[in-house]
């Protein structure tokens, strides 16, 4: 078994409405913010040989509007 952390982000240029909402919130609290982008984090514990990239491109992310990175993490961290 191996564990992975998948970070999914909106592609540059694609409207990131949640990021904008968070930016406005920080702004309302008086913080100076240049840019906020908001994505998602998914942690997976998978059997050996599992195809994380395929899971991302078919389901976890929408390749039209999102990019993703996959990082291996320790099994303990995923539990």
């Amino acid at each position, binding site marked *: 078994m191996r564990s992975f952390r998948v970070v999914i982000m909106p592609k540059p240029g*694609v*409207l990131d*409405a*949640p990021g*904008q*909402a968070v930016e406005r919130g920080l702004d309302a609290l008086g913080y100076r913010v240049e840019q906020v982008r908001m994505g998602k984090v998914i942690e997976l514990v998978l059997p050996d040989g599992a195809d994380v990239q395929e899971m991302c491109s078919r*389901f*976890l992310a*929408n390749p*039209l*509007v999102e990019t993703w990175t996959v990082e291996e993490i320790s099994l303990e961290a995923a539990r």
Partner: protein
Amino acid sequence: MTWGVVFFPGSNCDRDCVHVLRSVLGQRVEEVWHEDRSLDGIDALVLPGGFSYGDYLRSGAIAATAPVMPAVREIAARGAPVLGICNGFQILTEAGLLPGTLLRNASLQFRCHPAWVRVETDQTPFTAGLRPGEVLAMPVAHGEGAYFAPGDQIAALEAAGRVVFRYCDARGRVTPAANPNGSVAGIAGVAGIAPNVVGLMPHPERASEALLGSTDGRRVFECAVAALVGAR
């Protein structure tokens, strides 16, 4: 002729669609559960609006993996009219049966109000008999309805006449003010590679009785009924 309406957990316009088809249009309707694996005997299908599976991951993404979906692909492939309304539209894009995707509204607000769309093509079963340029009043109710596809895909859709509805004002003018969600080119509805699969964000089932302020939505269903009768 029998219509199917698919009920996903979290669908909330399912019964409205059944009501319009059954009680307003006098059609035979089967309620299809998302775990059903067969659509035998179904001639036309509606994927209704709502928040299937809580809209987790992305709107429509989980529903696109539902047990019923292989059968949906099958009847779509054999040419049956398939209409995705709102969340149903999102499900069809996630399933790859319709191009593009629906993003969070540019306003960041859930938009729920009367709207107008201009019919852009009569080459689908849901618009056959309508006149391109005709304006239909149908309400919108969504938080994630901004239609998006990369520029080259939009150009290809436009060139192929696969843009079915566009947001407009009451007089049919496509303007930024008439666009409730930031959809590219004001696109409110598109067709698949084969035109029998159509998705749109506005709700024809909420505009099918005079009591509700508009009967324009009924015409979308009536077109498909006429198309099916004509095909027999």
